[in-house]
């Protein structure tokens, strides 16, 4: 059941560019990425798009379809009306290299800032043991494919370029939570790092990251809010604070 679809695609870079109109053939069962490829093959051989797996697993084809951050390869054409104009733009929170391809190095900078997994020093490598129930919370966050759609949709940086300096973003809050909840991570400063270096307090838990995550990771409920609560434990909880003074322990709680 083929038909001709109306497409509006961003052409240009970060200096100049705009939305251009095309009419492209669509066949049954196709996804938006197929249509972009058909555009390349038939009308615009120089249209730039980043992709790899076409299976929703590599996280390369992130863009915005009708204004919503999405994976091009996981957005079915059958979800649109046949006579609706479909707008495809690059992610609007990052600089554009060309057309649909953005420069996502902001995310790699933030990734490098997080202290790596630190195994306990008193257990020999090879002797590490952990129970499934202890590690399952961290495992949810390992599903992340680093598509950075959550980073793209987060208004803290999307709408405020200046916050990129002090805000790491949802993808790296789940990394912080993954390590802080990990039974074998020996570091105890993950909470203060999240607050002071990652800008956890800037997130206002409005859940857009959760809404767009193609891996359905419950970013806000399972990582951000638990991390905020953990920070409350160490920074704002007067009961804990008084207890610590009485017991003369450092304010940062260790692993329990």
């Amino acid at each position, binding site marked *: 059941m083929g038909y001709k679809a109306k497409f509006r695609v961003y052409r240009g870079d970060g200096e100049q560019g705009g939305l251009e109109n095309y009419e492209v053939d669509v066949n049954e069962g196709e996804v938006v990425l197929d249509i972009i490829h058909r555009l390349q093959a038939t009308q615009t051989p120089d249209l730039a798009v980043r992709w790899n797996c076409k299976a929703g697993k590599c996280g390369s084809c992130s863009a915005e379809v009708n204004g919503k951050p999405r994976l091009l390869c996981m957005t079915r054409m059958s979800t649109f009306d046949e006579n609706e104009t479909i707008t495809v733009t690059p992610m609007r929170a990052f600089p554009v290299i060309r057309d649909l391809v953005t420069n996502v190095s902001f995310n790699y900078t933030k990734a490098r800032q997080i202290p790596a997994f630190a195994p306990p020093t008193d257990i020999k490598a090879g002797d590490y043991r952990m129970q499934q129930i202890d590690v399952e919370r961290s495992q949810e966050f390992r599903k992340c494919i680093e598509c950075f759609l959550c980073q793209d949709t987060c208004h803290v940086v*999307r709408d405020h370029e200046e916050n990129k300096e002090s805000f790491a973003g949802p993808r790296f809050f789940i990394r912080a939570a993954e390590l802080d909840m990990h039974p074998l991570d020996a570091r105890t400063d993950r909470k203060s790092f999240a607050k002071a270096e990652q800008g956890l307090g800037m997130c206002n838990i409005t859940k857009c990251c959760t809404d767009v995550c193609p891996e359905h990771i419950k970013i806000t409920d399972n990582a951000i809010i638990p991390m905020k609560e953990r920070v409350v434990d160490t920074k704002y909880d007067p009961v804990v604070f008084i207890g610590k003074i009485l017991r003369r322990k450092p304010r940062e709680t260790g692993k329990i």
Partner: protein
Amino acid sequence: MTSGTLSPGRARITARTLRTDKYWISPLLTVIGITAWITYATVRVFQQNYYWAAQGGDEAIRYLTPFYSPCISNGCIEGAAEWGTFLPDLWFIPYAALTLPFLFLFRFTCYYYRKAYYRSFWQSPTACAVNEPHKKYSGESRFPLLGQNSHRYFFYIAALISIINTIDAFHSFQSEDGSWGVGVGSIVLTANVILLWAYTASCHSCRHIMGGRLTNFSKHPLRYKGWTFVSKLNGKHQELAWTTLASLVVADFYVMAVAAGWITDFNTF
């Protein structure tokens, strides 16, 4: 404009959003819902009347609306004031002035309501991938929003207040002379209390205290069970937040209607 989504280097698209769906409906409904509820609650709380439904000369039924519980003003009707009265009876002091501010703050600092009012009233953001109107943004990292971190304390207090509501519901099954019975009002008040407990227990802070703060669940099997249970409820926190707003109004309206004599309570007393 050279900020926000038009910051240097980003796609040269001026549209505030390219979304084609009706993304504004949900924030609009939130504003309407919350404004309507606050209006109703304010009127009722300052009305200082029709809060205690005692029908029949011998006060067979004893229904106290949650908006006046505990009734601690000198103006409270005797039967309604179970915990003693010590607040002066002035028009601007609600009869349950001891607890209402905490219940308000409990909901005001609730993670779900925060999301709801940031998105709707404060438009930060209006909806996902829709540019927010604010020039500057620091989220909850500074005063006054830093105060949202106190949610946990309001959770503790709210749990204590839920006990008082539970006692009220319990008394709705007992008449003044101590005999037991059941009325439509007892059922309405009990349903409301069950929902209030579900909302309170589904709180994110509760989930954290219950077990979320642990690293090794395997060393704390009981708390792991508790955490698993609270996590299930927590998944329904948004629904419970709205259902309890509704159940509070239903319970209050029912008591008002009986107290004012608009309807008769069916009961076995």
